[in-house]
């Protein structure tokens, strides 16, 4: 008890302050850490996507000297388009490959050799011949499509040093491939199948075009239905509805609909649109209807906010010069609120584009190769295509899934950028 009480208080306070400041910095660091975790994940996420996906832009092709043998393509020499369409072009590709490796004669070896090229290679030759029938009888040097197993190997996704049992390419195939490579007959070319074709069991032929068209039709149906409905609902609730229990009920309903899990909307679509109304399964029309019900609350909420932002002076001026209430709303308030409504609609559409769970319920997970021509044809959507590919075991689908995701994200980015631009361009301060 040598020190006076005064100094001990002072010391205690000083110690306390040190402790409290330490706590302060710990707390602050925790906050920053949390933020960095979130942003770090975002960075990691985009890094993996791009690192996995960019290789899907290119595709391995093999240069073969294909003899366009007239006896195979058009034995009678009629040059009839139907004959040209129906010929066995894959045989020409196989013959060209066989001519490259004359020492391969055993049946099993030949099959392994022919597995190096894609089943789609013949279709490319067909296109070449149909476009230019005079080529028949000549020998063309063509870059034909390689099989996906070759593709992943050339791109280095699957190591050549793996033991043979762990590879889908055998040692002999690898040897042939190395020979082609040393002759400069293997190269990476732009992957147009990815952008221009539909789904396929062969990864090298699979593309996102059908899914994109399906998504487009679906969004079209959604937009045509949900925009007028949403705007009309917002106008009624904001401008005309009396404040009573009934309108309260509608409001509570809209807020709750916005939070109902999307899969429940899928159940509704299955039970009502498909089972009760008998609409076709897998059709973009049904998908659009379901997504319309899902986006409706988003559009209504945004549209109501846009309507409330129009100042009362505009309304009073319109009423003051003798407009009726309906004229006031439709001629003066609505045009001013429209940009805000459109912004909300675009954001709702972007959400609808990324939605996949309800589409699984209404059968849009079917394997669909053909591009849908009307909203009633069976189709799939971009996010569902991602889901389907993510489930496929082939290694070559990994890069395609990532690339499809990148395309999906680019679409979403464009839609959100459009919404932001619209907001910037038409935003008014009253």
């Amino acid at each position, binding site marked *: 008890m040598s020190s006076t009480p005064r100094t001990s208080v002072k010391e205690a306070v000083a110690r306390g302050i040190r402790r409290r400041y330490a706590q302060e910095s710990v707390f602050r660091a925790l906050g920053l850490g949390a933020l960095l975790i*979130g942003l770090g994940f975002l960075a990691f996420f985009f890094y993996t996507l791009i690192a996995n996906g960019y290789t899907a832009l290119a595709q391995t092709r093999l240069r073969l000297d294909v003899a366009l043998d007239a006896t195979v393509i058009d034995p009678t020499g009629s040059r009839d388009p139907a004959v040209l369409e129906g010929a066995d072009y894959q045989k020409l590709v196989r013959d060209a490959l066989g001519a490259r490796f004359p020492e391969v004669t055993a049946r099993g070896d030949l099959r392994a050799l022919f597995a190096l090229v894609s089943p789609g290679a013949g279709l490319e030759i067909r296109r070449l011949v149909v476009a230019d029938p005079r080529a028949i009888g000549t020998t063309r040097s063509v870059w034909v499509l390689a099989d996906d197993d070759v593709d992943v190997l050339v791109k280095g996704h699957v190591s050549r040093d793996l033991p043979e049992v762990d590879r889908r390419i055998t040692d002999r195939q690898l040897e042939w491939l190395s020979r082609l490579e040393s002759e400069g007959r293997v190269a990476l070319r732009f992957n147009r199948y990815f952008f221009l074709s539909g789904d396929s069991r062969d990864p090298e032929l699979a593309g996102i075009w059908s899914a994109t068209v399906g998504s487009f039709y679906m969004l079209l149906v959604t937009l045509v239905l949900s925009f007028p409905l949403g705007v009309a609902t917002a106008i009624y609730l904001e401008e005309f509805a009396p404040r009573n229990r009934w309108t309260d009920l509608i409001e509570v309903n809209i807020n709750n609909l916005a939070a109902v899990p999307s899969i429940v909307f899928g159940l509704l679509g299955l039970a009502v649109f498909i089972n009760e109304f008998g609409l076709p399964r897998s059709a973009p029309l049904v998908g659009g209807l379901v997504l319309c019900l899902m986006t409706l609350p988003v559009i209504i909420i945004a549209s109501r906010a846009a309507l409330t932002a129009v100042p009362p002076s505009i309304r009073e001026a319109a009423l003051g010069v003798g407009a009726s209430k309906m004229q006031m709303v439709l001629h003066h308030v609505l045009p001013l609120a429209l940009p805000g409504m459109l912004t909300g609609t675009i954001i709702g559409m972007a959400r609808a*584009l990324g939605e996949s769970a309800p589409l699984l319920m209404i059968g849009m997970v079917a394997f669909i190769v053909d591009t849908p021509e009307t909203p009633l044809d069976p189709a799939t959507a971009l996010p569902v295509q991602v*889901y389907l590919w993510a489930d496929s075991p082939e290694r070559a689908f990994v890069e395609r899934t990532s690339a499809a995701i990148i395309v999906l994200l680019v679409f979403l980015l464009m839609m959100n950028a459009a919404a932001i631009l619209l907001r910037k361009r038409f935003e008014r301060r009253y």
Partner: protein
Amino acid sequence: MASSTLLLAVVGLAVLAYYLGRQRAVSGVLGAGPRVYSHSLPGYHGGYVALWCVLPALLLLALWQIFEPIWLRDTVLAQLPDDLRALPSQQLGLIYNDIRNLVEGNVVSSSPSADILAAASRYAALRQTSHGLATGAVLVLGIACLAWAFRRVRPDFRARNRVERAIEYLLIAASMVAILTTIGIFLSVLFEALRFFQQVSPLDFLFGRSWSPQTAIRADQVGSSGAFGAVPLFAGTLLISGIAMLVAVPVGLMSAIYLSEYASRRLRAYAKPMLEILAGIPTVVYGYFAALTVGPILRAVGESLGLEVASESALGAGLVMGIMIIPFVSSLSDDVITAVPQALRDGSYGLGATRSETIRHVVLPSALPGIVGAVLLAVSRAIGETMIVVMAAGLAANLTANPFEAVTTVTVQIVTLLVGDQEFDSPKTLAAFALGLVLFLVTLALNVIALRVVRRYREQYE
């Protein structure tokens, strides 16, 4: 597609009606000069005539579309020979389907007999007459109403009021859609769920501890008894959502606190939208990420620590789902934290509290109801989330609390039960609707509670 041409014709008629009504109003009808005072603008007269022309015609068309199939079915079936008519209703339905498919040119289930062929040609003829009748009736009704409305156009006719009332009814009808959707969801899910509960007792469903949704093809096959006890699904859902909340709540809340209380204006302007990008990423992308990146990483880490981690572990799905929910928690909490009045903070600083003490002892307690509301909304999001768990969680119903094992959730089971071909009378598919009903009710309850909590809080400072 005959009805679409008819629809186009009706629209054409409406355009004509608008033009006629307008012309009549402009020209000054019934002897009055062109400068006579008219109550409404010419466009409203035109609109009035057009509405009268279109609405009754469309109503008739809609009624026809609804009742035509019923009438066709009854007439065609009534003319079938007696031995076919005596069949039970289900088989009769199949025969009727065959008849219709024959007419549509689709593949038929069996080679058609002469009776069926005759019925098919009768069906085709009947349908053609029906279409002809419908076209005639709709067009005649449209023209008749047009003529009637056209004659009513006079200078003193209050066309504007009528048109405006019609528009208002349209607006009301539009706002009914939201209600109808909710009712539709509830009833459609409820009816199918009730059919399920006729076959499986609700108590077994809610409290049973074994889930293996099969229906037997033969009575003696292995595992023929389907078990529909949903407790493992509820437990799995809670486990994954719980892991997700363990990630999302601390990270989301702390980033909201940092962004609203510590971060500089510039950092906030960049970091906040970037964090919200996370909310805009489609869930299927998170699912892909969870299944292909996070799952293998967790497995590798687990192996190096000597832990047995399933490749579809609850942990992986929960972690990724938590990341998805971070922006949800953070932006909602950010709003409530910013809404705490500055005076409270100033008072606390004035007493000598540090920033973190102010946040912990003053800001957070007064923002608590809002934060609780945000967390409840996030929980309802997590429970209803589908794609992440479909892609990254398991299918087998394990009743376990071990996050390293694979569990399944309510949404996963709904998807697996309903994807693919199904028949709508087996408990297997109907179980999905029972699960959907539970999901709908739980999320609805969570939302209602959350909105209540948030609303009550807001009133404090107003």
